[in-house]
């Protein structure tokens, strides 16, 4: 039943003023929601690759919106020490967008900057963002028969969404990297940029 329409404050969601982004929910609320996302997708697929792809697609949508939100918000913010002088500027260089993802996006979404950002040694087009324990993986344990499946595929999707919307198409995947002396493996988000990005980067000098 559609309620009798009263006069709404804002007729259009786009006219509503953008919040500061400081509102929080409990970690457990997010963890429950994420677990339902994974469980629902498990019922819709037959194999692990499909499951990872679906989680990535969900993350892609989050990433694209996140970029838009952050870009709009940075314009309005003044004198906030954390944002430095990044307002009103679109990242056009590879290192610029990578450090945007590694610091700003991570800080907004997960409350801290990512643990590390590295350039791949074997290939020119590969970069890696590493995290000791991804927020989404905190309460998840992978059964042995699921092999290398990583729910970090959701985060890989977020990164892909941000990069794609910013004009840096890439293939992004999440991998577990076992660390010596630690019980839980580290998670690495591997970013492989498309040819055109590297060509453009070389042209820009």
């Amino acid at each position: 039943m559609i309620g009798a329409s009263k006069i709404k404050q804002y007729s259009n969601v786009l006219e509503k003023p953008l919040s500061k982004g400081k509102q929080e929910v409990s970690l457990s609320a997010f963890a429950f929601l994420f677990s339902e996302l994974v469980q629902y997708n498990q019922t819709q697929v037959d194999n692990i690759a499909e499951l990872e792809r679906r989680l990535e697609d969900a993350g892609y949508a989050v990433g694209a919106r996140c970029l838009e939100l952050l870009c709009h918000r940075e314009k309005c913010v003044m004198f906030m020490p954390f944002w430095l002088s990044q307002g009103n500027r679109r990242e056009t260089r590879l290192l610029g967008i990578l450090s945007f993802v590694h610091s700003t996006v991570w800080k907004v979404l997960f409350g801290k900057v990512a643990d590390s950002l590295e350039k791949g040694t074997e290939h020119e087009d590969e970069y890696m963002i590493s995290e000791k324990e991804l927020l989404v993986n905190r309460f998840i344990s992978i059964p042995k028969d699921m092999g290398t499946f990583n729910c970090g595929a959701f985060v890989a999707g977020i990164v892909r969404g941000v990069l794609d919307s910013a004009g840096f198409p890439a293939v992004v995947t999440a991998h577990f990297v076992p660390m010596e002396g630690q019980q839980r493996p580290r998670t690495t988000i591997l970013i492989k940029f498309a040819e055109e990005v590297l060509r453009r980067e070389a042209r820009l000098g």
Partner: protein
Amino acid sequence: MAPAGPRSGDAIFASVERVNAELFTLTYGAIVRQLLTDLEEVDEVNKQLDQMGYNIGIRLVDEFLAKSNVSRCVDFKETAEVIAKVGFKMFLGVGASVTNWDAEGTCCSIVLEDNPLVDFVELPDTCQGLYYCNVLSGVIRGALEMVSMKTEVTWLRDVLRGDDVFELQVKLIKQVPEEYPYKDDE
């Protein structure tokens, strides 16, 4: 040692780990979008959201009871108050109030002040029958069922459909007495 008294919603929310509400909002949006693409029928999506909420609720109630230290509620009125004041605050960080009690005290409305699930959301014309926040009704239903109360939770007012607040109606169907799992004579 005397047991600690019940903690207020604000106190618990301040003590648990928190994440940015926007990550939560955007993830929920991704879930609803996936459901709409897969199921296509708005009624099916409503049912699936309710089911997801139910699955969350049956686990959430354990955490709720552990963290909030509430004592056993005397009647349904107290239950509704606790859900509104403590439950919503400690998980979603929003306040809620209880209104519209019926004569027998089995049916009430919970009005949410704010709803982090619907930031940035607008329902398109093709989805007008969608109860976007149906997961919340499932959560309450699941949580109460785990404490022996069968309830029916429906949306009375929904901002996405043109009303000015979010209002949930919680109706107690019956109290299910706890079943003792073991037979006495075995």
